[in-house]
């Protein structure tokens, strides 16, 4: 079992505030928020307080907050819901999380035209090109707020404004950004924003979609009419209460994380090259390229030393698929398999970072004895 957790971009431990806020709703306040009796009213009070608090923190009216089962559901609801049911045109950034990318690809299969907006060599969406690509009449424009692989923060305000000028709804996935940045509906100018609780110290299985004009969005789930009729089903009251509490607690330590990351980058020095070093990045996020070393192997080696980090490219069905995000910014497929993601959290300490840096250096040096510069593979 890993002792030091540095994979906070994948998920975070439940913070004390969220846990404390949730406990009553896991116990005596267990009621169904749709029922008029005391148990139900207690649950409803918790739900609506959470909705109001989430709206307040994210620049949205309570009526614009739709609680979901997480970020993927929120993204799916926005992309499918806003794009309509008859074929049309979408402009989507080339570096979306699969929760946006795959719905867009599904729409492509259903006859929609999807234009993939490019990024520059640092992984930032080319805003001028995005402005050129979005046209009046498009069903949807979408760009991630901060990318989950590189941590690069995107110029969402400018992209959202460009879409708004052309009368095109703009969706942004703020799942990764929300743990570190003051994201929100009002601040972005977007039509919809997706968030997830477990990336920012909240529980798993809950998130929200902020939507500027809920009446424009068709329901995702039909049934009892919960969540303004957009997503039926008995509400996950402990989850949303924990979400609101975590959201409230989250931003404070952003600066501390940025300082720790600088310390880490300096400690790793010549062993790595920092991916997207020249772009604005999330404060706790480091994507490190270790040329010639396989990231999936390095992750296992570090795990054995007690440090949990992630490989930049996931291995799916036997093949280590190079991340489309890294390929989009011009990285070679080989290098994309040599990229490790280190993501600091609120719980990360300076001692933890120093210990990690030492372990990282020794693991890389050891693995180098078995490393081979890629040879030409045959067909």
């Amino acid at each position, binding site marked *: 079992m890993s002792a030091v957790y540095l994979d906070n971009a994948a998920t975070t431990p439940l913070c004390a505030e969220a846990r404390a806020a949730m406990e009553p709703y896991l116990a005596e306040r267990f009621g169904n928020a749709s029922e008029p009796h005391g148990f139900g009213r207690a649950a409803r009070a918790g739900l609506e307080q959470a909705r109001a608090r989430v709206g307040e923190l994210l620049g949205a009216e309570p009526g614009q907050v739709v609680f979901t089962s997480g970020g993927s559901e929120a993204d799916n609801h926005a992309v499918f819901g806003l794009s309509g049911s008859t074929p049309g045109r979408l402009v989507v950034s080339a570096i979306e999380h699969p929760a946006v990318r795959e719905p867009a690809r599904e729409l492509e299969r259903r006859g929609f035209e999807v234009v993939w907006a490019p990024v520059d060599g640092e992984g930032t969406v080319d805003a001028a090109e995005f402005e050129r690509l979005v046209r009046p009449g498009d069903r949807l424009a979408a760009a991630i707020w901060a990318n989950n692989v590189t941590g690069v923060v995107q110029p969402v305000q400018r992209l959202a404004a460009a879409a708004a000028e052309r009368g095109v709804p703009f969706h942004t996935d703020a799942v990764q950004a929300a743990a570190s940045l003051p994201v929100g509906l009002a601040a972005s100018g977007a039509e919809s924003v997706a968030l997830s609780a477990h990336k920012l110290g909240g529980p798993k299985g809950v998130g929200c979609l902020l939507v500027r004009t809920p009446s424009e969005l068709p329901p995702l789930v039909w049934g009892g009419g919960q969540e303004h009729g957009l997503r039926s089903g008995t509400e996950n009251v402990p989850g949303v209460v924990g979400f609101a509490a975590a959201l409230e607690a989250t931003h404070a330590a952003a600066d501390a994380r940025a300082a720790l990351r600088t310390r880490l980058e300096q400690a790793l020095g010549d062993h790595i090259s920092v991916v997207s070093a020249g772009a604005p990045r999330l404060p706790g996020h480091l994507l490190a390229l270790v040329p010639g070393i*396989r990231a999936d*192997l390095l992750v296992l080696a570090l795990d*054995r030393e007690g440090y949990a980090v992630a490989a930049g490219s996931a291995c799916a069905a036997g*093949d*280590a698929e190079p991340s489309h995000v890294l390929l989009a910014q011009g990285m070679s497929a080989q290098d994309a*398999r040599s990229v490790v993601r280190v993501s600091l959290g609120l719980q990360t300490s300076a001692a933890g970072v120093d210990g990690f840096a030492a372990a990282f250096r020794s693991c890389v040096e050891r693995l180098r004895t*078995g490393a*081979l510069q890629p040879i030409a*593979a045959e*067909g």
Partner: protein
Amino acid sequence: MYSAATVEHALSLRHAGSAGPTAVVGEAGRSACGDAIRIELALAGGTIAAARHRSFGCPHATAAAELACALAEGRHLLGAARIGGSDLEAVLEPREQNRECVLLAVDALHAALATALDSASFPFVDGRVAVAMSGGVDSAVALLKAVEAGLEPVGVTLRLWIDPGAPDGERACCSPRSVRAARDACHAMGVPHVGLDLRAGFHHEVVEEFVAGFQAGRTPNPCMRCNGSFRFAALAEFADRIGAARIATGHYARVRRRDGVALVARGADPAKDQSYMLAAVPSEILGRCWFPLGEQTKVQTRAQAGRAGLEAAGRAESQDVCFVGGGDHRSFLERHGGAGRPGAIVDLSGRRLGRHAGVHRFTPGQRRGIGVAGPEPLYVLAVEAASGRVGVGPRAELERRTVWIAPGRLLTPSRRVQAKLRYRTDPVWATVRPGVDGFTLDLDEAVSGIAPGQTAVLYDDDTVVGTGTIAS
């Protein structure tokens, strides 16, 4: 996800690195996932003193490379040639989708072993026999018979060049998949397997000759050439290196001796007889050959494979002209610079009936694809490469009573023979008249569709007594 053994081996690095400047090297790579493995073997005589690996591979591939080196180190080369995918899988327990990653390490090890054995010179060992393995059922049963006979077989598969643009190259008996199937068949019987990469030599000796033959207006038989001057020679050299006096293959043929000369004879199964294809194998190599299936039928072979539970029992047959990989040879020739010149289609009187796109599309006796119509069906009579002229005429004009074979040789003095003038045709009675560098055949009955470039094989009873190339 990774098994505990996979993690342990992937991170062990006990055998990571280089085995020194004189080590032999084997490499394997997969373009699909970018993985590459290099295995180096330091040798002390026929023994692997040290095995080392370096890789740019996923944990499954890296763990497999480490384990393969651990298993190979300290073993004799032929002992290490018994290491296969199932040995590694038994330890690493990969999921189905990661088995390919594990096999990459086996490929790299076997590539290194093949390189090492290329310069081996083992003393001859009684009972050691090199068994040619194609990955199909016939060679698997031939191997089974060698095992059952108490011999010490070593399986060998020749990896030959296949057209990379072929529609179905994987079916060919020399494809990477077939090499793995052959390896598995050997390992299932506890027999070492060696895969020799002969792609370059095969391309030069057989494929280029095939292309040149068509360009010259002939209809060459590349399988004859391959058996006669390439494949069996490579097998014999391999057998010499590993100390095997004998060579076995899964052909349906027999070896007979006349006056001390080894000759090939028909197999017992008339439907499968492959003696024609082996007619050009040199006698000194034939004398070392054993065809375990020569005395039986294909049906018996299948039954034996089924009883023994051989995985190859249901596998498709390998094919003739393997390197075109399931494509037709005309489009192969066009892709590989073997297209002959275009020209006129003329009748017997020299009258021009039409044009054609290239002489390589025609062979004497051909009826389809001529592209001109006549009052009676037209057949290709002659192909003139230099002028590009293709002569056509009625079927009766195809008939020939005399054939000139050159170069050709009689293996034993013969006068009355049965001559087979093309594969999969019935032989005809003929009288042999020896000439300077070949011989003339006077046929007892008229034969049509005799194509220069094809091979004539002469039988006395069931034994091949002469062979040569049809010149005219």
